[in-house]
């Protein structure tokens, strides 16, 4: 029904116009210290219009799904495009794409629409029990499980008509341990784009135990020291390096703004061990979609191939500017936002080292585990937090210390990568670049050098 309404409305648009419909239904189950918070469910839905007139975009959105209102946002977006035109320096032109008519539903074994909610509640309660029972030092936990079911429609005045259903199931565990006036917390998550089968594949209880073990171990631990050290980044955090440190520099809008990679196409930017990919169709990836929010089919984009910079991530606009094909990286968080260039599933390809082989050559260094927030400037300077730093002495893992923020220039860090593990995994992430979005981050454990911002 909504498709018909949108199609009808687009007939009277001016310039090049897009309408996007988005309904996001969600269910959240949250258990705190064994007690269940209100079960939370609902839907947010709306439509946005984006119009390109004489090289100027205008954008408007609404949650009122009536014919008159959709007409109004189309008109509003056209008049915003016209009004802001004199103030814009650059005329936007778009790379051609064939308008697609298609329907896509993420492959699922257990569609969460048919979920037994009582059973899910019991599952979360069980994980909570398990976590709190892990050790006496654990004083508090929060276990969340979420289902986000997105229905997206994209229609353009060129004739594109795409409908996609993307389903994400994910959970996270936050554990706090206390002992003798000290406090430590740990955090882990699971999830993918799929049905509820993810709970069988990567049980929430497994990461619950990882977090519980970490919090109780770190409660009496000291903060890791400061300085430049040889480190192994655990496979669960390599994705942060791929995403924060490198990925953003390869987003064509930032490349256009003069990012580190701006003049590096075809040049060596990392150790030859490093192949870095942003894949729009990684099976189960948190950022996977068949078409991006400009109606462009997504693809697997090789950004760094054996150390050499090969490609950037593009929208239709930047693709034309750079004279390449759009890669399908234009994504919007909801109908309230216009699509901008975003990563999808970014990862560093696995190598052939076992974990013991990675550690054996390190005399004095750290095995860094558990990710926290990160950020990067487009000159490649990055930082992200780690939860745990296990000291490596003469090739052996020794004591666990509290993790610290690590930083450096991404490309220095990548040049120093001399070994990559064979334990490649894809994880879930949330990325904020003016608007947030789901992103897959992945990789295998790897060995390099980073600056650790710790205690003296």
């Amino acid at each position, binding site marked *: 029904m909504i498709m018909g309404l949108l199609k009808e409305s687009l007939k009277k648009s001016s310039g090049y116009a897009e309408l996007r419909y988005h309904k996001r239904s969600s269910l959240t189950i949250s258990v705190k210290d064994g007690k269940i918070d209100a079960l*939370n469910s609902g839907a947010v839905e709306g439509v946005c219009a984006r119009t390109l007139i004489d090289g100027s975009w205008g954008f408007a959105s609404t949650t009122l799904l009536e014919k008159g209102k959709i007409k109004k946002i189309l008109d509003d977006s056209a008049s915003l495009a016209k009004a802001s035109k004199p103030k814009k320096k650059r005329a936007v032109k778009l790379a051609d794409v064939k308008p697609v008519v298609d329907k896509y539903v993420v492959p699922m074994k257990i569609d969460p629409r048919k979920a037994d909610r009582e059973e899910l509640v019991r599952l979360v309660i069980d994980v909570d029990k398990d976590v709190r029972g892990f050790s006496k030092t654990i004083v508090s936990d929060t276990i969340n499980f979420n289902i986000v079911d997105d229905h997206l429609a994209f229609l353009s005045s060129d004739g594109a008509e795409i409908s996609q259903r993307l389903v994400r199931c994910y959970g996270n565990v936050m554990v706090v341990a206390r002992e003798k006036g000290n406090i430590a917390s740990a955090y882990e998550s699971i999830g993918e784009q799929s049905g509820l089968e993810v709970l069988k594949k990567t049980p929430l209880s497994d990461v619950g135990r990882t977090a519980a073990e970490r919090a109780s171990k770190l409660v009496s631990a000291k903060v890791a020291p400061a300085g430049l050290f040889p480190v192994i980044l655990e496979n669960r955090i390599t994705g942060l390096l791929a995403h924060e440190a490198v990925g953003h520099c390869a987003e064509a809008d930032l490349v256009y703004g003069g990012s580190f990679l701006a003049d590096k196409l075809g040049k060596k930017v990392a150790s030859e061990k490093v192949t870095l990919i942003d894949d729009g169709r990684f099976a189960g990836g948190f950022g996977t979609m068949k078409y991006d929010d400009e109606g462009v089919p997504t693809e697997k984009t090789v950004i760094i191939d054996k150390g050499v910079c090969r490609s950037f991530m593009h929208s239709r606009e930047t693709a034309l500017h750079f004279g390449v094909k759009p890669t399908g990286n234009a994504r919007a968080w909801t109908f*309230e936002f216009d699509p901008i260039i975003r990563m999808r599933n970014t990862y560093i390809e696995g190598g052939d080292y076992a974990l013991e082989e990675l550690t054996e050559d390190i005399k004095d260094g750290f095995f860094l585990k558990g990710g926290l927030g990160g950020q990067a400037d487009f000159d490649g300077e990055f930082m992200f937090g780690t939860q745990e730093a296990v000291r490596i002495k003469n090739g052996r893992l020794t004591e666990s210390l509290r993790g610290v923020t690590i930083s450096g220039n991404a490309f220095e860090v990548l040049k120093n990568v001399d070994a990559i593990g064979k334990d490649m995994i894809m994880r879930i992430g949330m990325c904020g670049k003016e608007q947030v979005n789901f992103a897959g981050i992945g990789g295998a454990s790897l060995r390099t050098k980073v600056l650790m911002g710790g205690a003296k």
Partner: protein
Amino acid sequence: MSLNEFTRLALKYCEKLGADEAEAFAQSLQTTEVVLERAEIQNERVKIQRGIGIRIIKDGKLGFAFASVLSKSSIEETCRNASSLANVSIPNPDWVSLPTLTKLPKSPSGLYDEKTAQMSGNEVLNIAIQSYDQARKVDKRVHIDDGKFSLFSTKIAISNSHGIEAEEKATLLQGYLICMAKEHGKASSMAFEYDVTRSEKDFSPEKIGKYAAEKALSSLHPKAVKTFTGKVILDSETAAEILMYPIINSINADNVQRGRSLFAGKIGEQVASEKLTLVDDGLLPKGIGSSSFDMEGVSHQKTSVIKNGKLEGFLHNSFTANKEKTKSTGNAHREGYNMLPLISVSNLIVKAGKKKLDNLISQVDKGIIVRRFSGNIRPDSGEFSGIAKQASYIEDGEIKYPLKETMISGNAFYAIKNIIEIGSETRPTMLRVYSPPILVDKINILSK
């Protein structure tokens, strides 16, 4: 229909569904936004959002459902959804009740400005351009990386089955610029500057542009400094982020009750330097977190948190207050109609000292000033580490030179005990903390 008519209607449906208690929270929000990217107007957006969130309690079991469509049929369906969620849940033994009616104080002045509410997209665009032009006017070496100017016009309404019924509207204008300076092929670090006010007449786009440009220029040609432990001046934004964020986490009664706060059991104890006094004031005139009631419809108030370094109180919503048989401090907060109420500060005010920033600088024999921080702060333990951006080296009471990216690390709970001085120039920050610059001692400064 007005928002309160929708919330009342929801309560009626909930009663029919056999709810013991019910609450409806409705919100309408119009956002007009201008986004600058790579020195260009990237986009203008007008967003209109409306929605309702409904909490139902049945036999101690809680259900919450929300919808972005406000119509009779959608509200009826949302109530049914909330009710069915309560049915499949498990009773929460800590649940006592939704808040009961309190007499609301007079609405703080200056929260809503009709002229601001009526601003067109073009007027917001003009503000962005004024800011942008000002930055370029300061010096041709200044380049704008990105920025965003947003006008929010919002209305919220709450009704609950204990007779609470409240409605209020507000406006908020906020904007920021991030820019850098370039000279001889070298770029400075990114400088960030912002303003946030309730009305357009208090908003200063020129100041944003001017200060952003000056900050960027002053960080050209940075030098490295050897690793040392010493004094650090945190400006308003970094003081809020590094020092106040762990405090905000630790005065949250939910965290206190759940053993997640290092302040648990320390009321009356000295937890910070005598120089530190913190008040949460939900009634601050023109305050960016002000309104006459919190997001459960409970009266806003002034709550003393830390007085001369002594811990005085925690912040409650009705759930944590009931659990302890005390009164809610009116700190229920929701990120939106689709979220359950949690606890947050309204306006957390750091009592200003008497010294201007220049005087703080003159007090530093060897140290740095940090104007941007990119790092991690552990809200529970207070540990922080990250990159000091837009930092300068201070020696013998004078700023000597800008610093190359330098890492800093420490612990917020130690740092607040080592406050040397709190400045006089208070600014609102994005965390709803009103803070002047703060000079602290014994921070690790690590050369890269």
